[in-house]
């Protein structure tokens, strides 16, 4: 379940990943909605201000118009000499003054700042200043003192000009403010669009990123699953092949026994009994080896042993075997504690030693050397012989159950010895390797982990 080259997301993270994803999306949507709402709110406010500015301009225009009309009515009053006509014009004058007052009252609340207020108050003051003089113009006109009235009107001219200027200033002020607000609205609008675009891009990017990582995760899982399936299929095939091998190897001696049992008088009684014995012991050995092979993992995990003691115990059994065929056995093992049961480690050394005896070269004195030494982190046993050796293809299959080399098939054996060695060593967390040269010899190397401490 390890893969070094790709980012590994732990299985436990997967639900959190989805929650994080959902939370971030909800957060983005909420903040996006809020910012849009705020933007619209601001825009509404600005529109309100703009409306008010436009209303102010309208009112200022109205006032200006009223003042012009008011002024014209003075002129009309001076020209008019009939008293009834004068009365009518005075009525219109009163109306115009009432309109001016109404417009002024309407304008007052639209004032937004001090600059505008100052300008407004100045205008009011000037209008107020004109009113008494205007009243005297009407008085003079009523007495038909038109020339004097005109003279007074003339003196009023600068005041009216000032009022006009003040009006213009007021209108300009409002227009500038309206322009400013329009600019502000436009820039707010632009900002809103930009923020929205950024949010959209960020959200899309994030979603793509998460989708990509989730896809990669799924793909990774799938490939892991495929690997596991392949491994399982391989194991199944191996198991099938293994069962086939067991059947085949048991059928051999069984056939011999069967033939010997049914054989007619041609076969000697003694010979038949020997065949029985051989066949039964061969099958017994196969069964024993199979049981050893299957029990290994359970036994090795418990127990520790002293390598020197195991080597000595293996030597006791091996020496007679080696010397029985005229060979030389050298054994030398440094002492250390390894995490393996003594019985199984002894079996490993015995299997390798026995192989050396079984597959010796005829005509060459057998030499077997067993060495145990402590390396940095491991304990290493090496078992060397000067026997037949194996071809490279045989070396490749040497540890497979029931595999037997071409030239050793006639020698008795189950083909399970080396697979037992491999399983014992690997169950302790160690490793086994072999080097072999045909017709020169074979060296097995077993590396076992060192147990943490002797006291433990």
């Amino acid at each position: 379940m390890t893969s070094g080259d790709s980012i590994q997301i732990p299985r436990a993270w997967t639900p959190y990943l989805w929650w994080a994803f959902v939370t971030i999306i909800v957060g983005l949507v909420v903040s996006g909605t809020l910012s849009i709402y705020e933007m619209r709110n601001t825009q509404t406010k600005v529109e309100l201000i703009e409306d008010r500015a436009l209303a102010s301009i309208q009112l200022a225009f109205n006032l200006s118009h009223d003042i012009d009309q008011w002024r014209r009515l003075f002129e009309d009053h001076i020209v008019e000499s009939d008293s009834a006509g004068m009365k009518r014009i005075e009525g219109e004058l009163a109306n115009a003054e009432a309109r001016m007052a109404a417009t002024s009252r309407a304008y007052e609340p639209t004032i937004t700042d001090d600059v505008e207020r100052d300008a407004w108050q100045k205008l009011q003051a000037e209008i107020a200043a004109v009113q008494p003089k205007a009243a005297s113009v009407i008085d003079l006109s009523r007495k038909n003192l038109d020339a004097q009235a005109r003279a007074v009107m003339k003196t009023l001219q600068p005041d009216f000009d000032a009022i006009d200027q003040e009006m213009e200033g007021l209108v300009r002020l409002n227009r500038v403010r309206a322009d400013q607000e329009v600019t502000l609205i436009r820039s707010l609008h632009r900002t809103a669009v930009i923020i929205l675009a950024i949010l959209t891009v960020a959200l899309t990017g994030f979603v793509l990123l998460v989708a990509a990582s989730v896809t990669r995760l799924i793909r990774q899982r799938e490939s892991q699953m495929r690997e596991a399936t392949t491994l399982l299929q391989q194991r199944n095939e191996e198991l099938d092949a293994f069962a086939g091998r067991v059947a085949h190897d048991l059928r051999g001696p069984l056939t011999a026994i069967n033939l010997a049992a049914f054989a007619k008088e041609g076969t000697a009684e003694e010979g038949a009994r020997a065949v029985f014995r051989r066949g039964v012991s061969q099958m017994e050995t196969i069964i024993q080896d199979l049981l050893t092979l299957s029990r290994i993992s359970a036994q090795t995990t418990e127990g520790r042993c002293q390598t020197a003691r195991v080597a000595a115990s293996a030597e006791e059994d091996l020496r007679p075997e080696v010397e029985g065929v005229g060979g030389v056995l050298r054994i030398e093992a440094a002492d250390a504690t390894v995490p393996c049961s003594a019985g199984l480690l002894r079996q490993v050394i015995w299997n390798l030693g026995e192989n050396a005896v079984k597959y010796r070269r005829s005509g060459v004195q057998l030499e077997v050397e067993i060495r145990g030494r402590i390396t940095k982190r491991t304990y290493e046993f090496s078992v060397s012989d000067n026997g037949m050796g194996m071809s490279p293809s045989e070396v490749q299959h040497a540890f497979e159950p029931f595999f037997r080399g071409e030239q050793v098939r006639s020698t008795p054996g189950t083909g399970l010895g080396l697979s037992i060695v491999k399983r014992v060593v690997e169950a302790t967390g160690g490793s086994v390797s072999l080097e072999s040269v045909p017709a020169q010899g074979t060296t097995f190397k077993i590396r076992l982990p060192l147990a943490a401490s002797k006291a433990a």
Partner: protein
Amino acid sequence: MPVQCNEVTSNPILQATNSANMADVLIVDDNADIRDLLAAILQVDGHQVREASNGREGLDFVAARPPDLILLDVEMPVLNGPEMAQGLFLRDFGDEKIPIILLSGIVGLQEVAEVIGTPYFLAKPYSPEALLRMVDWALREHIPPRPKLGVR
């Protein structure tokens, strides 16, 4: 003349029965016990027997003197059963006409028999009676193997 005629007509029949009863059988098996037991059983039945311990030896024996029947194991060192059968077929010295009885404990023996192209095979463990029946049958029918080349 009639006597001569009688002799001439009876002679092939006599030879045929003879060859069915007394055949030259080659046993090829790497298990010495099984080899010896098979030889003993066949000799009791009146056959002449030779023993080879692998396919290479088997081919040598056939080259020295072609037998009437070959009892062939499948898994053997040096040269296995199917390889030996293919060797006989490829050599094309008339040896490919010799019927072969396949004897093995391997799983899928029938498939191996199909590859070699022989109708005669016996799965281990078999009884001596079954073996003798198969030997008689093979010697009577005399169906030669037809190996599928290139398939193993």
